[in-house]
């Protein structure tokens, strides 16, 4: 029993030692200019269809090594800090409820000097917004918000140095359709 307690104590000490490191990592990502806080979005914890992807730098570096055959993609992956994807099914009412939240995020992005590169709204009410965070001619963050009333809402945030030539490949490889249409940015005013 004494040994079991010692192991439990050792485990707890190790867990306590590791947790602050992870919290520190997360804090670093949250402070990064390319990070966007989705917490204001009414992302359903329970729903018909939801997909959440949360890939942090250590795993992305491993994947970069694994994807070494495609040097452009591997190069970009090794510079990324976070890939976060939230997709969920929405009805028309929920799509309407999302609009003010998206507008709030957009005003926050404008304050932080994010560049709007795509804004699409079609007759069916489908909307798509693509924003980039540019600093010293480097892209440090990407945000995609796409809403299809009666269909699906997709929110994608990529944090870190981004190569726009490789971003389409990333969408294809990670099965993120919202990224496949994103290509080299055109400045909009």
């Amino acid at each position, binding site marked *: 029993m004494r040994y079991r307690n010692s192991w439990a104590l050792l485990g707890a000490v190790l867990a306590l030692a590791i947790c602050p490191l992870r919290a520190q990592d997360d804090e670093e990502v949250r402070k990064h200019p390319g990070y966007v806080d989705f917490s204001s979005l009414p992302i359903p914890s329970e729903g018909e269809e939801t997909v959440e992807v949360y890939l942090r730098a250590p795993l992305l570096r*491993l994947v970069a*090594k694994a*994807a070494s055959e495609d040097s452009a993609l591997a190069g970009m992956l090794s510079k990324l800090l976070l890939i976060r994807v939230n997709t969920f099914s929405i009805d028309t009412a929920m799509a309407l409820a999302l609009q003010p939240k998206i507008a709030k995020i957009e005003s926050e992005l404008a304050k932080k000097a994010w560049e709007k590169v795509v804004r699409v709204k079609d007759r069916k009410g489908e909307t798509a917004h693509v924003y980039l965070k540019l600093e010293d001619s480097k892209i440090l963050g990407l945000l995609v918000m796409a809403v299809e009333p009666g269909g699906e809402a997709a929110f994608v945030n990529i944090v870190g140095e981004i190569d726009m030539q490789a971003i389409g490949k990333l969408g294809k490889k*990670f099965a993120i359709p919202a990224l496949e249409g994103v290509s080299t940015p055109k400045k909009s005013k």
Partner: protein
Amino acid sequence: MSIGHRLAMSLFLATAVAGCGNIDTHFSHVRDTVLRAAGEKETKTLFQLSIGPGLLLLGGAIGRCASKEASMLLDIRSVQVGIYELQCSGRQTGLIPASVDRMLARRGYEPIVKVRDRGQQTLVLAQLRKDRLKSLFVISADGRELVLIEVRGRLERVLAQAVRQRGLPAKPAIIAASAAEGH
């Protein structure tokens, strides 16, 4: 049979079955937490398997001659698989409780993919240390079955092969969820 042959046979059997047998307590805690949350009073095991380093080493050593993929067994330290019956097929959501995330987070696991699709829920967690992928845990429940898989070892080479064949980490889980939708 000579003493040498007997010794060799005993050594072979000891190596082959080392680590095989019951799942470990941490794996059974995850199973029990999900089953309890789903309202199951007892565990109905449909399939359960735990393979330790002995058999994997043997398989890897034999497979090394056959193919590169089989030789990757040498990188895997243990595999635990469990399939359990669930009787809550009417239930659409909340099959995998948040306490499982927290329980596995205490063991250094972080969730990388969560998929919920019409009553099916899949959670993929990874345990990383420095630049090493130490283990992967997959939990999938659809109201009729709970599937748990844990693979431990040096999984970088396995990940590299998976990336080459199936795309990046999020993709297999999303493909699996889409495939389940088709059934």
